C-alpha cells in the first residue's frame, strides 16, 4: 500500500492529460507484465484453453506499474476553497445562534424532518462507503453490491425501534435515555465510556482514511492533511455546535448525491441509457473477463471443476470476494443493530422537535442513502467497464480510486477540462464527506463527556447554560485535538478493523441496553452496566483475536510464498530479461519482510487468529443481550420497575416531552 502512495507522490505530473492518452500508455506496459504470469503457471483444468495465474502475481504487478491519477491543482484548489468557504459562512452564522446547551447539542431542536434526513444521510455515508463500495464493485462485481445492502436495511431498525422513542424520551445523549429510570451516575459514566470508545474507533478510521485520501489525491503530506481536516472539524464543532455540523452534513449529502448522479448519468450514456445493454456490456467486457479469470476464487472454482465458462457473467454472480457466509451474517447483524446504536446517529434525533419529524427524517434519509447505494452500483460497474479492473488495481490495490478515475475518464471523454473539473469536484466531495462524518463523531463524543460526565456526574446537573456551553466547547476542542494526534500516530497502523469494531460495540453494547431500557419493565441499573460492559469488552476482545489484526508469522508466510513463486519462475526461465532486475528486487524485498516478521506475535501475542470471523457481531450481540438481561434479573430494582410506566408512556406518546427538553 505504502509503495503505491509513494508512487503517487512521485508521479505528480500528468495533471491535465486526459485518460485516453493514459490508457494508450498503459496498454503496452501492461501487456508484457500480464503475459509473464499467464505463461508462468498453467493450471490443469477442465477448461484447458483458460490460462490462469496465481493470485500473488496480481498485487505484485500493481506495484510495478505505477498507476496515475492526479487532480489538477488549478481546478481543484478553487473548488476546495469554495466548499470550505461555504461551510465557514455556515459556521459564522450558526455560532451566533448557539447560546444554550440545547443550541449546542441539538441546534435547539429546530431542525426540520427533511433537513434532518439529509443530515443523517450526510452523517452516515462516509468516504469509505462512497469510494470503498464502488471500488469493491469495480473489482469483484456482485459482492460489492450485496455488501452495500445492509447499510440501508439498517435504517429499518432505526426507524421502527429507536428513532421516535429516543426523540420522545431523550434529551442530548444516549446517557439521558439510559439513566432515565436507573441510578444516573454510574449509568452515565459507563454510557459515556462506551460512546467515547465507539466514536474514537470510528473517528480514527475516518482520520487515517482522510489523511491517505488527501495524500493520494492532492499529493499533500499525510500529517498536513490530518491537521487540516482536524482544524476544520474542530472549528465547525467548537464554534457552530450542532447547527454548523448539521449544515455541513446537509451540504455534503447534497454534493455527494450530485456527484454520484452526474457520474451515473455519464456511465449510463455509454450504454445508451439502456440497463439491459449496461449489463450486457459488463458480461461481455474482455478486460473484465480476463480479470475474473485471474481472481483467486475463480481459480479455485476452476480447480474444483465448478467454474462457469462465462467469466463475464460470473462477475454478476456472488462469491468472488465475500467467501465466508458466517462472516457476512455477522457483519449484517452488526450493521442492522449497530447503526441504531451509533451515538452520532442517535444524537441526530434530538435535533428535531417531534416524533413525527424524527420519523420523517429517517424516511428521507432512507431514500437518499438507498438511491446513493444504487447509484454506487452503476459507478462500480461503470468503472469496471470503462476503466477495466486491471487499471483500477494499478492505482489502488483496494480499488478505492475507481470512482475518481471514472470521473476523470468520463469527463475527459467530453473534454480534458471537464475531466479535471469532475475529478476536482469529486475530490472536494470526498473531502466534505470526511469533514461531515468526523464532525458528527466529535460532537457525539464531546456531548458524552461534557453533558454526561462533567455536567451530570461531576457537577450533579448543577451547571448554568453558560458553563454547559463552555464545557461542551472545551471538550470538543480536546476531543478534536486528541483525534488529530491519534490520526497522526495511527498512520502506519492497520485500521481496517476499526469500522467493524465501532459497529460491533454499538450493536453489542449500546443497542441492547437502549432497546431493553425502552421496552422492558424489569430493566435496571445493573442491566445497563453489565450489558454495556460485557457487550463492549466482548466486541473489542473478539476483534483483538480475529483475522483483522496483523499476525507477523502469517505476513512472513505470505512473503515466502510470493518469493518462492518468483524464484521458481526465474529457475524455469519465465521472467523476461528486462523484468529480471525488478523481479530480483521484489524477491529481496519479500525476503526482508519475511525476516522482519518471522517469529513475531500479534498485539495479544498470538501466532494466528483464535476467532476466525472478521466481524464479532454474531457472538458479541447475543452476549451483550444476555449480559444485560441477566444483570437486570440478578439485581432487581423496584424503583426502575415503577418508573417504567412513565418512560413507556413518554416514549410512546411524547407526553411530557417539553419538560424533558427544559429540565
Amino acid at each position, binding site marked *: 500500500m505504502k509503495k503505491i502512495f509513494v508512487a503517487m507522490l512521485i508521479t505528480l505530473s500528468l495533471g491535465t492529460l486526459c485518460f485516453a492518452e493514459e490508457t494508450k500508455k498503459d496498454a503496452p506496459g501492461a501487456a508484457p507484465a500480464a503475459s509473464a504470469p499467464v505463461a508462468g503457471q498453467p493450471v490443469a483444468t477442465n477448461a484447458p484453453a483458460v490460462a490462469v495465474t496465481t493470485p500473488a502475481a496480481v498485487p505484485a504487478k500493481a506495484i510495478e506499474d505505477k498507476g496515475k491519477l492526479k487532480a489538477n491543482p488549478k481546478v481543484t484548489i478553487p473548488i476546495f476553497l469554495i466548499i470550505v468557504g461555504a461551510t465557514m459562512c455556515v459556521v459564522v452564522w450558526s455560532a451566533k445562534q448557539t447560546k444554550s446547551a440545547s443550541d449546542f447539542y441539538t441546534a435547539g431542536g429546530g431542525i426540520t424532518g427533511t433537513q434532518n434526513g439529509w443530515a443523517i444521510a450526510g452523517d452516515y455515508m462516509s468516504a469509505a462507503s462512497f469510494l470503498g463500495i464502488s471500488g469493491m464493485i469495480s473489482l469483484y462485481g456482485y459482492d460489492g453490491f450485496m455488501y452495500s445492502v445492509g447499510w440501508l436495511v439498517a435504517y*429499518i431498525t432505526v426507524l*421502527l425501534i429507536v428513532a421516535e422513542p429516543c426523540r420522545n424520551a431523550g434529551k442530548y445523549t444516549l446517557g439521558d435515555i439510559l439513566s432515565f429510570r436507573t441510578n444516573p451516575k454510574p449509568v452515565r459514566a459507563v454510557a459515556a465510556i462506551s460512546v467515547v470508545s465507539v466514536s474514537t474507533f470510528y473517528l480514527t478510521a475516518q482520520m487515517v482514511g482522510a489523511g491517505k485520501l488527501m495524500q493520494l489525491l492532492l499529493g499533500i503530506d499525510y500529517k498536513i492533511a490530518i491537521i487540516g481536516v482536524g482544524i476544520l472539524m474542530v472549528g465547525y464543532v467548537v464554534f457552530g455546535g450542532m447547527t454548523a455540523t448539521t449544515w455541513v452534513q446537509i451540504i455534503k449529502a447534497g454534493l455527494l448525491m450530485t456527484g454520484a448522479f452526474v457520474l451515473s448519468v455519464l456511465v449510463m450514456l455509454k450504454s445508451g441509457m439502456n440497463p439491459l445493454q449496461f449489463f450486457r456490456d459488463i458480461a461481455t467486457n474482455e478486460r473484465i473477463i480476463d480479470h475474473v479469470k485471474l481472481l483467486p476464487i475463480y481459480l479455485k472454482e476452476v480447480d474444483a471443476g465448478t467454474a462457469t465458462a462465462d467469466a463475464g457473467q460470473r462477475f454478476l*454472480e456472488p462469491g468472488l470476494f465475500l467467501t465466508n457466509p458466517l462472516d457476512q451474517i455477522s457483519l449484517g447483524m452488526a450493521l442492522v443493530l449497530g447503526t441504531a446504536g451509533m451515538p452520532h446517529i442517535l444524537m441526530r434525533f434530538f435535533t428535531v422537535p417531534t416524533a413525527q419529524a424524527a420519523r420523517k427524517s429517517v*424516511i428521507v434519509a432512507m431514500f437518499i442513502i438507498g438511491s446513493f447505494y444504487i447509484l454506487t452500483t452503476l459507478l462500480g460497474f461503470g468503472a469496471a467497464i470503462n476503466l477495466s479492473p486491471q487499471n483500477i488495481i494499478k492505482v489502488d490495490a483496494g480499488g478505492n480510486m475507481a470512482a475518481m478515475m471514472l470521473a476523470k475518464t468520463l469527463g475527459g471523454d467530453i473534454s480534458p477540462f471537464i475531466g479535471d473539473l469532475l475529478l476536482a469536484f469529486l475530490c472536494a466531495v470526498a473531502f466534505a464527506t470526511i469533514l461531515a462524518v468526523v464532525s458528527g463523531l466529535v460532537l457525539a463524543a464531546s456531548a458524552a463527556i461534557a453533558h454526561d460526565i462533567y455536567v451530570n456526574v461531576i457537577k450533579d446537573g448543577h451547571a448554568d447554560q453558560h458553563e454547559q456551553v463552555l464545557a461542551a466547547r472545551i471538550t470538543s476542542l480536546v476531543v478534536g485535538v486528541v483525534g488529530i494526534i491519534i490520526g497522526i500516530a495511527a498512520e502506519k497502523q492497520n485500521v481496517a478493523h476499526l469500522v467493524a469494531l465501532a459497529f460491533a460495540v454499538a450493536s453489542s453494547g449500546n443497542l441492547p441496553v437502549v432497546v431493553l431500557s425502552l421496552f422492558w419493565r424489569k430493566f435496571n441499573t445493573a442491566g445497563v452496566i453489565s450489558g454495556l460492559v460485557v457487550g463492549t469488552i466482548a466486541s473489542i476482545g473478539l476483534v483483538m483475536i480475529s483475522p483483522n489484526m496483523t499476525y507477523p508469522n502469517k505476513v512472513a508466510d505470505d512473503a515466502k510464498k510470493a518469493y518462492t513463486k518468483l524464484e521458481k519462475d526465474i529457475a524455469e526461465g519465465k521472467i523476461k530479461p528486462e523484468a529480471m532486475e525488478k523481479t530480483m528486487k521484489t524477491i529481496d524485498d519479500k525476503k526482508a519482510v519475511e525476516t522482519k516478521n518471522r517469529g513475531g506475535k500479534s498485539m495479544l501475542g498470538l501466532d494466528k487468529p483464535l476467532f476466525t470471523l472478521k466481524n464479532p457481531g454474531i457472538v458479541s450481540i447475543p452476549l451483550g443481550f444476555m449480559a444485560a438481561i441477566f444483570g437486570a434479573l440478578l439485581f432487581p430494582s423496584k424503583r426502575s420497575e415503577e418508573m417504567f410506566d*412513565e418512560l413507556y408512556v413518554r416514549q410512546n406518546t411524547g407526553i*411530557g416531552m417539553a419538560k424533558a427538553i427544559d429540565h
Partner: protein
Amino acid sequence: MAEKQYNWAAIAKNPKFIELHHKKSAFLFGWWIFSSVYYFLLPIGAAYAPGLFKIKIISNINFGYLFALSQFFVSWGIAMYYAHVANKDFDRLTRELVEEVSK
C-alpha cells in the same frame, strides 16, 4: 416553570394507551422481524443457493441482482407503509390520548 404532573401509572392503564401500545408493538416488531429475515436471506442465499442466484431473468440480469435490488425497494416500502399507518393510526390515537390526559 410550572410543570404539569402526570399520573403515569394511570395513563399506562388508560384503554387508549393500551390500544396504542398493543397496535404499535405488534406492527413495529412484526415488520422489523420481516425486514430482518428478508435481509438475511440475501447473504444466506448467496452462500448456500448460488445456483438460484445465477439464474438469468432478463438478458444478463440474474436473480441475485434483482433480489439484492429488491432489498432497497422492500425497505423503502416498509418505511412508507409505516409512515402511512403511523400518520393515520398511531398519531391519531396519541393525539386523542394526550387530549384526554391533559384535561
